[in-house]
């Protein structure tokens, strides 16, 4: 083909590319606010179980604090803390931490602690434990994770935060004591961390932009 047709063909391609780009840009403009609102709602919704219906009036996603490893919380990946306030006072803190010593890989845990250090809820965010045994840590498969609600360091005492087999106060899952131990240890360490760092956690200003 000669030079003229090459130019003409290029022009057609450019024109259609421009039309398509306009189409996508327009759709993006129309949908972007809704998409952002959806993502925020999803995050808040996924954190609800760990809040146990506590009253709060602060935006949870804005209060995110990302601690990069190494930190004193369980796990060697980033730990996330969401601070929850009601009428300006601290209500609870939600921790997303990782128990490294699961039976088959790390277990990501969401733990809610109210301002006095009492557990408001525990949920498993991600795991690869054995189906039928270790996967009973999921709240959908058994009520094992609910046994921690209402407990704190001191109730039972630190040494009581272990499975029955190890002389502790909590039930283990049959056939999955390694999994149970990993989850309990991570909860205990997070509670201890919260106890020593409570005031700083709520005082720090951070929006999690550093993730």
């Amino acid at each position, binding site marked *: 083909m000669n030079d003229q*047709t090459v130019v003409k063909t290029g022009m*057609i391609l450019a024109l*259609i*590319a421009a039309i398509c780009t306009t189409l*996508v840009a327009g*759709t993006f403009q129309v*949908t972007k606010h809704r*998409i952002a609102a959806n993502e925020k709602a*999803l995050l808040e919704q996924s954190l609800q179980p760990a809040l146990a219906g506590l009253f709060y009036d602060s935006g949870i996603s804005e209060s995110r604090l990302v601690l990069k490893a190494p930190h004193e919380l369980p796990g060697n990946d980033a730990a996330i803390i969401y601070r929850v306030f009601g009428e300006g006072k601290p209500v609870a803190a939600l921790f997303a931490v990782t128990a490294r010593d699961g039976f088959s890989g790390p277990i990501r845990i969401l733990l809610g602690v109210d301002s006095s250090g009492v557990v408001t809820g525990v949920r498993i965010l991600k795991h690869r434990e054995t189906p039928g045994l270790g996967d009973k840590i999921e709240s959908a498969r058994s009520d094992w994770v609910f046994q921690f609600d209402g407990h704190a360091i001191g109730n039972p005492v630190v040494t009581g935060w272990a499975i029955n087999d190890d002389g502790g106060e909590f039930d283990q899952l049959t056939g999955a004591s390694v999994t149970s131990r990993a989850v309990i240890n991570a909860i205990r360490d997070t509670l201890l961390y919260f106890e020593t760092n409570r005031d700083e956690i709520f005082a720090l200003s951070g929006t999690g932009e550093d993730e």
Partner: protein
Amino acid sequence: MTSGGLIERMQTGLWAENPGLVQLLGLCPLLAVTTTFVNGFGLGIATLLVLTCSNALVSATRRWIRQEIRIPIYVLIIASLVTCIELIFKAWFPTLDRSLGIFIPLIVTNCAIVARAEVFASRNPIGASIADGIGMGAGFAMLLMTIGAFRELVGQASIFSRLDMLTGGEPFAGFSFADSGFLLAILPPGAFFSLALAVALKNHIDHKRRISRNAGMPRRLRRAR
């Protein structure tokens, strides 16, 4: 094309040249997402929309599309449309979008769409191309829904679970018939078995039809065929 011709075009896509059952195109999403009726419905509708719009756009621009650059132009048009559909799903059906995951953007690679652009839309007027897109898209969507419903029924012994992903509102567990189903149907091999059953069923129906049509003819004509 007359309106009768348009309807005939749509019927071709729905049955005689169904992209999934006859042309066996777009099998990757077909096999992967059809674990429930709602998933099949969601991806089916998304594919139908993309296919109809891409057929319309390709047909509208067919005068200017030169032979040498037709493939890049199809890719541009289809990719833009899929991106738009993905954004719309994210904005209005966020849970469905998460459930379908990567398969919404992957509609780009559904060869049924490029095949319709190349075979039909680039050679026919807009009206016929839109009819073709609707017919082929609906044919594909019907197959996704049928296989999704079948696998859900057999595998989970329930139907319409998570219908709330389309309508909004509280999570809906679906109508359950038993505690557990035949798990194989949900697993990847179940997808192949279900598709094979669907193709076999279609061939069986076509075969039956042909026999009954032949039986209705006078003997002399039948021999002539």
